[in-house]
């Protein structure tokens, strides 16, 4: 028997903070102090994690397959770069929000194209939009700097107080703070009735429409939000590296992003974060083995993951940790990746 209060109870239980989650964030914070020589790559991972979380919002929760998510990343990156370069908005946090909003506007405008049609049409339209923006950025090279990218960006101190240092320490903690705040927001969103309705749409749009969920409006809303997140990730990229080049729009970036999410698992927000860590480590590993051909191994990883099956793979990975957890905390505490196919 599953009554309304029952459903509400389970939804609330899901939404509550677990010890594991608190531990996760503490570990992330601890990493910031434990590896002071690795700020650059850790910042990179945080950025990727935020970007992946953005894709998770639409892929894992709303079931929209996108091959052009780099479009919003790129718009955010260029917006932040231009704002800083021309001194329009000097304060980084404010510029970050403005850049995010710019991507959000684009997301809102394009969401009407994306909600039409089936998976394949969506793939095409998202990919097409990213390619279109790349072509535009190349065309208006007097604004974007063309293939050279935006150069000579100088970041002002955050809130006018904390300057960016050359070791990337500020950049790291700045990115971490942004990621954490946005994570809190995303967590709130996906556990709200709005988030639950998205899952209903993902499982069966027709049924969702039949029980009175405005399917298209919900999809537009989440797509716009995801664009905002991706824009922020792009802006962080520009602010922490002080460059913005054409490859922010590249299709490989969108494809890599999918891999990140597939490694981590979709539909529970942490997938992007964990996936980003593993992906960067894999990339480092492959590029030390074969500097020029690491793409081959990334491709192989993708193929193997799909052939083995994402669910099975996640079960294998969690087998040993779960054995330990079961010993300590009992059967109920075991961890599982909530798998969701679209």
């Amino acid at each position: 028997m599953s009554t309304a209060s029952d459903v509400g109870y389970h939804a609330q239980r899901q939404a509550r903070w677990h010890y594991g989650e608190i531990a996760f964030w503490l570990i992330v914070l601890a990493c910031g102090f434990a590896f002071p020589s690795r700020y650059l790559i850790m910042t990179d991972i945080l950025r990727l994690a935020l970007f992946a979380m953005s894709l998770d919002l639409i892929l894992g929760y709303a079931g929209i397959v996108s091959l052009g998510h780099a479009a919003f990343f790129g718009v955010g990156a260029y917006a932040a770069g231009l704002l800083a370069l021309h001194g329009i908005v000097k304060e980084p946090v404010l510029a970050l929000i403005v850049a995010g909003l710019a991507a959000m506007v684009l997301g809102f405008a394009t969401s009407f194209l994306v909600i039409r049609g089936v998976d394949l049409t969506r793939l095409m339209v998202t990919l097409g939009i990213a390619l279109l923006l790349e072509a535009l950025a190349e065309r208006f090279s007097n604004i974007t700097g063309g293939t050279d990218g935006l150069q000579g960006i100088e970041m002002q101190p955050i809130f006018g107080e904390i300057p960016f240092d050359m070791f990337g320490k500020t950049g790291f903690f700045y990115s971490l703070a942004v990621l954490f705040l946005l994570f809190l927001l995303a967590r709130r969103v996906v556990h709200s009735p709005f988030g639950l309705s998205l899952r209903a749409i993902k499982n069966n749009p027709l049924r969702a429409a039949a029980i009175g969920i405005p399917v298209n409006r919900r999809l537009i809303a989440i797509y716009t939000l995801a664009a905002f997140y991706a824009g922020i990730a792009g802006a962080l990229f520009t602010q922490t590296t002080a460059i913005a080049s054409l490859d922010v729009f590249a299709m490989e970036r969108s494809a890599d992003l999918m891999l990140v999410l597939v490694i981590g698992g979709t539909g529970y927000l942490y997938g992007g974060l964990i996936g980003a860590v593993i992906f960067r480590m894999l990339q480092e590993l492959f590029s030390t083995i074969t500097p020029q051909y690491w793409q081959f191994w990334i491709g192989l990883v993708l193929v193997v993951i799909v052939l083995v099956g994402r669910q099975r793979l996640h079960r294998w990975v969690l087998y040993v940790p779960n054995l330990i957890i079961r010993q300590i905390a009992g059967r109920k505490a075991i961890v599982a990746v909530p798998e969701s196919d679209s």
Partner: protein
Amino acid sequence: MTAILTNLFDGVAYGMLLFVLACGLAVTLGLMNFVNLAHGAFAMAGGYVCMVLVNRMGWPFFAALPLAFVSSAAIGIALERMLYRHLYTRSHLDQVLFTIGLTFMSVAAVDYIQGSSRVFINLPAALQGQFDLFGVGIGRYRLMIIVICGLLTIALQMVLAKTRFGSRLRAAVDDPRAASGLGINVPQVFAFTFAFGCGLAGLGGALSAEILGLDPYFPLKFMIYFLIVVTVGGSSSITGPFLASLLLGIGDVAGKYYVPKMGPFVIYTMMIVILIWRPNGLFGRTAAR
């Protein structure tokens, strides 16, 4: 006026080439509802086989073309039997990930074997240069492409419309379940069609080295073009993708000639506009159900 005709001619040649490259993909999508983003990799394989045969082993160009077809078809059928068939029932996301993975692997592998620079196939002297026909400049190579691709299209249309295999294939595309209920061996039809489509892509790849440029990034660069052909053209018939290819070819050539500054802008805009206007493709039913 003559410039317009020359452009039209180039556009038609380009479009025909795209059709040969992409028609295999249309069938794959229509028949098995399988999103194969690695289609360009088969084209690239054909192109490189042809290049090695002609440049390194001194085969005549026209003898190497059939081999490009055969080798791509062989790779296609091997991969279909080993890998692809496990994925027909999986979600689109899985298919996309899998085929992107394959594409990455093919790019890196070709880069490793042949280097990353663009390759050219040595053409026989008879195919080089152009001649004037009533003042319209006609490239010999492009004329050959139009002839070969035109003949292929007619042959394909005949096979689909007149032969027993063609009617089986059409039945399987229209409704795979009903078709298998009638005793048609759908997986077998599919495997054969898949191999044939890959072979055509390989042939297209060999022909396109001169026009589109052949380098290891070919599958990524032209993925969008193949997808445009398929989504815009639909998969209910062979005419849809054919017209879509011609439209795309002429549009792209004209766009690059008249508004060179806009670059590839023209076709992307065209595609998005068409997909907004007719989300299911210009010509009838869409590929994906």
